């Protein structure tokens, strides 16, 4: 019984939140890594692109709600998602045409790209704040919990409860669907293969008759889809605040580099690695050890590696450790 209790405890406080947060990071990191792999720069405007997509979704959600349309048990935001994706694609392509294309044709160095992406970051930041404001917005509706802690306790007769929010399940399902389609596209379809070829060796890809303009277009479309989906899932699960989205860029970058920049599968694992270390290292294991240890050996301290204040710092620290040990990431990068 004690053993079961301890397992439930870990599931409730580490595994379920870890999988949710990890999925959100993974989706974001795949987007960053695709931009890096194909367009060859680190896009600092990505966090704000996520915020922009989410903002559109929220606005459409409000519109639908005012019309009395809802999605039953599921959040209305899922209905609004396609509109958000379309507008985000439009914005990405607009910035690519007006800004990035010029530098791509000039074959500028990566730092120039980073700097202009900073400019776009400022612009998107302003646009989001001007339209929707800087405040916290909760746009989750529909059914909140799939399993409440109390219900679980009654059901199983255990001491520990297991709470599962519907957003957590939605996040996981959406991530599985999105990633399966994406990896199928990259590995099995002709366009996906040409994207990988372009990322691997630009000159050789051009020689084989691959159209770079098409590759760039498709990359931006995929990236915008990923950014909007990741942003909306994060917003549904926690809440929408432009500043948080900007800050989320940092763990996303960490996940990207940890997984090997330019490597989508690596970014996927990187997202989960970062999420689980953030949650696992800041969790106080006192109660867990109480269950599995004999009474005489019960711990007196919290058994917490580092306090929760340092949650963000953990992902940064992991990144730095990875950069020292394996600068190319855990999974060798640079090929999508």
């Amino acid at each position, binding site marked *: 019984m004690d053993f079961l209790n301890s397992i439930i405890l870990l599931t409730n406080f580490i595994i379920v939140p870890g999988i949710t947060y990890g999925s959100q990071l993974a989706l974001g990191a795949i987007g960053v890594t695709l931009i890096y792999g194909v367009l060859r*720069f*680190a896009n600092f405007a990505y966090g704000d692109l996520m915020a922009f997509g989410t903002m559109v979704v929220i606005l459409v959600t409000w519109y639908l709600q005012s019309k009395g349309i809802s999605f039953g048990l599921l959040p209305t935001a899922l209905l609004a998602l396609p509109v958000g994706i379309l507008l985000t694609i439009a914005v990405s392509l607009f910035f690519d045409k007006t*800004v990035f294309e*010029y530098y791509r044709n000039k074959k500028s*160095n*990566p*730092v*120039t790209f*980073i*700097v*202009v992406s*900073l*400019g*776009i*970051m*400022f*612009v*998107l*930041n*302003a*646009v989001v*704040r*001007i*339209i929707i*404001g*800087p405040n916290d917005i909760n746009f989750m509706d529909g059914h909140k919990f799939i399993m409440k802690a109390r219900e679980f306790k009654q059901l199983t007769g255990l001491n520990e409860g297991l709470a599962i929010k519907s957003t957590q399940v939605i996040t996981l399902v959406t991530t599985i669907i999105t990633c399966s389609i994406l990896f199928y596209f990259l590995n099995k379809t002709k366009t996906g293969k040409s994207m990988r070829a372009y990322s691997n060796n630009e000159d050789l890809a051009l020689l084989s008759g691959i159209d770079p303009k098409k590759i760039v277009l498709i990359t931006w479309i995929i990236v915008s889809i990923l950014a909007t989906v990741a942003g909306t899932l994060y917003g549904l699960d926690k809440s929408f605040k432009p*500043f948080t989205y*900007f800050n989320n860029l*940092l763990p996303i*970058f*960490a996940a990207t*580099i940890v997984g090997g*920049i330019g490597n989508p599968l690596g970014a996927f694992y990187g997202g989960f690695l970062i999420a689980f270390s953030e949650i696992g290292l800041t969790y106080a294991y006192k109660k867990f050890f109480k269950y599995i240890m004999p009474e005489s050996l019960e711990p007196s301290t919290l058994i917490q*590696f*580092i*306090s929760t*204040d*340092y949650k*963000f*710092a953990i*992902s*940064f*620290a992991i*990144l*730095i*450790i990875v*950069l*020292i*040990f394996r*600068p190319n990431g855990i999974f060798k990068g640079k090929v999508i």
Partner: protein
Amino acid sequence: MIKNIDFRICFSVMAILTVLVGLFQSWGIALSMLNLCLISAVMAMGVNIQWGFAGLINFGVMGFLAIGGLATVLVSVPPVHEAWSAGGIGILIAGLFLAAVIISIFIINKKLSKNKYKNYFVFLIVILSIPLLKFIAGPSISKIESINAATSGFLGGANLPIIFSWFVGAILSAIVAFVVGKVCLGLRSDYLAISTLLVSGIIITIVKHEEWLSRGVKNVIGLKRPVPYEVNLQKSEWFINLVQFFNSSKLSKDLDPEAKISLLNQLVISSSGVFVKLCFSLIFLVVVFVILYFSEKALNSPWGRMMRAIRDNEEAARAMGKNVVKQHLFIFMLGSAIIGFAGAMLVTYDGLFTPSSYQPLRYTFLIWVMVLLGGTGNNYGAVLGGFVVWFIWIQSAPFAMVVINLFTGHLDETSYIKVHLQNSVPYFRYLMMGLGLILVMRYRPKGLLPEKIIKN
């Protein structure tokens, strides 16, 4: 397009704009803008030394600014004796332990540089030291933080004049930059950008949450000043005489004596604020000129030529026998020290230290916009960038207000769109910054004042 703009013209334009702000808005606003322009100029010069001279991309500006800010607290605040007697020894032991860990890592790095498992040793030491550090310092920290939690709850500082803290901030920043540089500088440009950004995040987290050190989110207010206080000024004889002298025309009008006294009082109160800001401006001006002088000297010295050579072609410089790694580390420390100096100046000017206010957009990327807009590799450009960007940053809100009123003039006062836009006026500055940066990068990629290449 104008190919070459003389820096004197640019600075005259900025001076005229500042005077215009003084005439049309108020002298208080103009002077506080000037002061922040000067501080920004120092920050921009620090970044320019790293990026313009050496091509090192440092997105960790925010972290070094916060270290400078922390230095003001550590230097100028009076020590909290109760806290020291309660937990001082524990903290000192923890500090010694931390120093021992860092030194042992460096020794391992030196002695075992050939060993395959060197990195794993370092990793193991770091992982083990964190819980140990917590174990050693934990009890003292909770003791310190429980003493007068509402008013102090931290160790306090050394009770020295705050001006020392600027130098201490520079030294502390240089030390941190040494550690960061050792870890990160070997990385490629874009990796370096990301990792320095993340390191600055770690620094901010530490400053924010180690309350025994910095009071964290509880902030430290009422810091000392290197200039007189308004309240004291208003009481001092010579200042009142000064105000009388400058406003003699206003006061000489035939008023009844009571009205005259109240007018004088008002003038004294308003001009005391201006006077304090003016004092700050003078000190900051001296700082800007000194740093500008030495940066120019350095840029045109053999050392500056070497740095540019390393920046433009690292391989060639290495082949010429220059120690690139060492020079990069040195210039990273130098630039960070200047940024730390500016951070201490900023906190001194504000008079309070608020760790939660440090955000990368304002304290890292804005400084970068200054350097890129002003002119990479040109010290005058960096100073100009500091001025122009801060000017736009401050003035874009009123400017946006005017534009919004122009376009929504036909709308009703309570119209939703108008009210919404008026409420979001502060965010137009981000828009201006972004557009400015994109346009400059496109049409004047070397900035307003491009780098001067001296050909012998």
